[in-house]
């Protein structure tokens, strides 16, 4: 997983779970990477200053 502090998977079916809906700046690169590589295109990122 590209951002393990922000996303996890459900044990029963593997569906992605959002652990932190507004991650801090230090997570930004990892979250961008996760959104870019997620094969299910399930991650939408909105960036506000």
């Amino acid at each position: 997983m590209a951002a393990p502090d922000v996303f996890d998977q459900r044990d029963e079916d593997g569906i992605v779970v959002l652990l932190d809906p507004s991650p801090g700046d230090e997570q930004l690169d990892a979250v961008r990477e996760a959104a870019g590589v997620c094969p299910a295109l399930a991650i939408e990122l909105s960036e506000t200053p």
Partner: protein
Amino acid sequence: MNAPASVLVVGASAAGLATAEALRRKGFEGRLTLLGAEAHLPYDRPPLSKQVLSGDWVPERARLRSETTLSELDIDLVLGEAAVSLDAAKRQVKTDRERELAADAIVIATGVRPRALPGTAGLSGVHLLRTMEDALALQAELTASRRLVVVGDGVLGTEIAATATKRCGSVTLVGPQAAPMEQQIGADTAKALAALHAERGVDLRPGVGVDGLVETGGSVSGVRLATGEVLPADAVVVSIGSMPATEWLAGSGLRVEDGVVCDAHCRAAEGIWAVGDVARWHHRGLGRSLRLENRTNATEQAGAVAAGILGAAGAYEPVPYFWTDQFDVKIQVYGLPGPHADTEVVEGDPADGRFVLRCTENGRVSAIVGWNMPKQARLRRAEIAYA
């Protein structure tokens, strides 16, 4: 090497688009051109044999990115125009509209083309599946009263058979292996998959070759097996593998041997890279060349190629990974399950319809296969060790 001022990506499907996106994400600010032979905005292929074929998704839902997201990438998106030749030394591509595109770095992402059965061109009712048009044409043939025969028991053929049971009264899957996808998932899991298909109404004809198709008045009417038996069919899907789309590279100066031959960094020549289904690169960890036709590799390799173009030094040596969804089963495969691996159930229980299998070869974990246990399988990926 200095970062290039311009990059041209040839191929606008998953690998090509992911390369463009990764370049921008990693800070590339130069001119970026994405050239695609298909007229559609970039779309995802895995849903074609599943949600699109079943009719659960409208075609637009398979788009990889929205128009807004694409425009924010600030790329020259050239669609419906195919590359017809490459001059690797000049880093120049010619298109079928007689245009010449040059760039400091060129990324080859032209994918693969499905293999056809010889002598079946123009025969009505015979289908291949690679593009959105292919999926919709096949979908139109799948109705309750029709009999579908799928020729080919690899990942694609097996997925099509599973999906087709939702729409067709009769689905038959024919292939040379003892059980479907044996080569990709190993014998034990393939047996479980065969049982699942049989239980859900797929007529499996394993271990048999196909001699040819039977024609009646310009339409296919059956599939002739090597045993002489003829399976009656109203529609036939041929999914017997594919070939890298490299014809346009003839005379380019690049080495092409079942894919564009690349070094450990996915570089085919100075300033020329290859990514996705079309790329055959040297996987250092496995100690051999590899070409992977799967969705995950398209994205991962795109990240590696983008990093390489921008000057990063690392070799690309991923743990191969693909998934397939069939009926209500999700299969995840990390690594390469060889035919001679020892296998052991390490999580769950096949009797409960959920398990993780570990494959070991020469004392090393070669693959992890998950059956309805995606998270547990992923957590064991780290057991696969190269080097």
